[in-house]
């Protein structure tokens, strides 16, 4: 058959001396360094994980479940990582050239493959199920949560609390002026008693769930307080949200976690979690939107809006 001719013609050097050169070369390569490197990576990673001083900052909100899910994930994935790397190291050690018998010709092993597949599926479910359970809580805002609005502007933070009526007034980009940096609707009665905090920290009451309503007047930002665990983008043109209950008093940094231009790393603020008495004392000192605009009109102070004062 002419096919055979093609076959051997296209199969040069099958008995070539180059084979010997190849084998010789390989004999020189010692297998032990890579075996040791693999073991070192498996063991070293685990040691680093447990011994290094770098770990998350203590939590200050109700989202302990997120930490728990993270820990579950660490255990499952850590076990798999160590197992796979050590097994690889063992294979290299045991079956490196020159030590082993003739390799097994075994195209597949259905039983083994299915066992591993099912074991993987179980591991995946063990991570996914708690994850989705906690996510459901994360997206279900409790009825008793009070609204807090957080507004991002290049490159600073402002806050708004609902006034006595417990509801935030409407706002629009078109209303933004130097006196009204958050763009509250001056014709909305609900907005008049809103408390606008333009150049101060945000204060929250410990143990009181809040629904954080997020708004941006220019580009994407992200309200990120590491101690709270939650974070969410602020999208111009829409209002996003998440909720949390502060569980630890203290002052925590607010960072922006979505690239928003050159001032991104400098976009800082602080949130103060405190007990009821201190919170109410602080709240009592704040001005409502109506008072603030009134004061501005009467005294004609030449104040710059927060957005531009934070600009550099």
């Amino acid at each position, binding site marked *: 058959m002419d096919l055979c001719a093609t076959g051997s013609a296209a*199969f040069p050097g099958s008995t070539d001396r180059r084979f010997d050169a190849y084998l010789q070369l390989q004999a020189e390569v010692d297998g032990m360094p890579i075996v040791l490197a693999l073991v070192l990576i498996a063991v070293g990673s685990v040691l680093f994980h447990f011994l290094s001083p770098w770990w998350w900052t203590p939590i200050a909100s109700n989202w302990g479940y997120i930490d728990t899910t993270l820990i579950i994930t660490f255990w499952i994935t850590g076990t798999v990582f160590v197992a796979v790397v050590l097994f690889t190291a063992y294979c290299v050690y045991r079956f490196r050239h020159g030590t082993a018998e003739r390799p097994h010709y075994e195209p597949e092993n259905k039983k083994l493959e299915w066992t591993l597949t099912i074991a993987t599926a179980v591991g995946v479910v063990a991570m996914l199920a708690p994850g989705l359970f906690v996510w459901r809580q994360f997206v279900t805002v409790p009825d008793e949560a009070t609204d807090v609005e957080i507004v991002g502007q290049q490159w600073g933070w402002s806050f708004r609390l609902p006034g006595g009526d417990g509801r935030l007034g409407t706002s629009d980009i078109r209303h933004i002026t130097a006196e009204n940096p958050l763009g509250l609707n001056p014709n909305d009665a609900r907005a008049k008693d809103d408390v606008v905090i333009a150049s101060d920290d945000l204060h929250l009451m410990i143990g009181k769930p809040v629904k954080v309503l997020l708004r941006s007047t220019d580009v994407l930002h992200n309200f990120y307080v590491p101690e709270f665990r939650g974070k969410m983008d602020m999208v*111009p043109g829409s209002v996003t949200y998440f909720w949390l209950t502060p569980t630890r008093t203290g002052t925590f940094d607010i960072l*922006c976690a979505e690239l928003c231009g050159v001032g991104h790393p400098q976009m800082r603020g602080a949130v103060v979690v405190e007990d009821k008495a201190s919170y109410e004392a602080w709240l009592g000192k704040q001005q409502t939107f109506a008072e603030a605009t009134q004061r501005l009109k009467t005294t004609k102070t030449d104040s710059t809006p927060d957005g531009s004062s934070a600009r550099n």
Partner: protein
Amino acid sequence: MVDTAIGREPIAPAEAGEVELYHPHSWITKYVFSQDAKIIAIQYSLTAMAIGLVALVLSWLTRWQLAFPGTLSFIDPSQYLQYITMHGMIMVVYLLTALFLGGFGNYLIPLMVGARDMAFPYLNMLSYWTYLLAVLVLVASFFVPGGPTGAGWTLYPPQSILPGTPGYEWGIILMLASLIIFIIGFTMGGLNYVVTVLQGRARGMTLMRMPLTIWGIFTATVLALLAFPALFVGAVMMLFDRVLGTSFFMPSLVSMGEQLQYGGGSPILFQHLFWFFGHPEVYIVALPAFGIVSDLISTHARRNIFGYRMMVWAIVAIGVLSFVVWAHHMYVSGMNPWFGFFFATTTLIIAIPTAIKVYNWVLTLWHGDIHLTIPMLFALAFIVTFVNGGLTGLFLGNVVVDVPLSDTMFVVAHFHMVMGVAPIFVIFGALYHWYPKVTGRMLNEWLGQLHFWVTFIGAYAIFFPMHYLGLLGMPRRYHEIGQTSFVPESAQNLNVFITIAALTVGAVQLVFLFNLFWSLRYGRASGGNPWRATTLEWQTPETPPPHGNWGKELPVVYRWAYDYNVPGAKEDFLPQNQPPDWGTG
């Protein structure tokens, strides 16, 4: 595009004889405007590596800034953003995609399926020159007023086209234009890769006899042809928003104290389009790597790839699933939070076929005859880094775990490990593996050892500890973290350590480049099949293979690609074109 498709010979290249096509007439048509897929592959690879070198230098500068902030006076916050943006985009699109598909795809597809060339050689040539144009447009953005865009490689509007972001004047326009050109060029090449696998296979080369390299590249190309249009749509619409003032993505906003004319658009719409491309893109890079590493492991462990059928099905399954996971990049983007349930589930499901692949690579080593060649070493390094990066993906895919980690250095560490380091290791392994076929010479072994050890240990030392910066809460895209209540001083030591590792790893890549050129002249002669591999590219009558690949007669395929150490066979490997009555007892 269609135009050329019509003009081409309607005969399958597999059946074409020694036609005129395979005899270039001048130096120009042989080496510059070449229609030979192998030359085009080299052109693609060299261009990708050249622009990749730029991205490498940018990464040194960003790392330097993070470890020693302020010591290089020319790095200001704007520069820093421009460096990371260009580094990211170049590495993902212009290096990895171009090298895997334009480079390895062009070189290996015709050879491995037993064709003389790609299906549409002229289109293939155009593809390279279009790609080069895209690269030049991208490079041009370094020289325009305002410099290249610093919007982050994700280019999220509104900031990417507004003052306050570096390069909003010209950089972003050139970036979008370059991407559009790249996509057009890629589509021309992609048509070739797909059609050659579909129609160009030699006699006997059934789909299930194809090496996994071809399966990986083929599936990745299909993904790319369908996913790149999403980036195209996003780029065109953003270009309209930037240049013509439409409001596809732009809501009404106040920028720098000024009300802009924009109104009503949705920044999240762009994110959907971007990630509809962006997630398949991860697999556009990963699937060729999966395929190639399978062949490296099998060849150098002298054992058939374990569970070939599962490997093929897993590639196809991953390809399909990769289109329904995109919004896992958007858990904290402000999209409807209920989507989280769907996308977390699909994302974690994709872990299963991926895990199967990992098991099968390791099980191929089991009871093998492992030759610790440089390609094998890189394959082992791939397994370690890919498993590491894949597993941290389970953190970020599982919606609620992603919330504290998203936009932190954990994400940076994760994606560098899984789609930076791991696929690059495969590229290195593949270059050491196929260099003898391309040049007829071996790469220098000693330099290779040096390159491997520094790169492997160094890369792990860069990216493993980086996850812990993310756990601390350190956000990404900060040129310096400054004062915080939650990042301890000691974290800066870690940053310095990472930078030193990064600079070392970066420097040793220059050794590799030196090796590439040095061995061209002084490398040991390799012969046609130095690794004693089964696949067709090693069975060419000449090495390096000439235009047309196969001389007078096309190969005929008699067996699958993994007949290593078949019981009863004389040699420890049976080439795919070896007739069945030879060598078997």
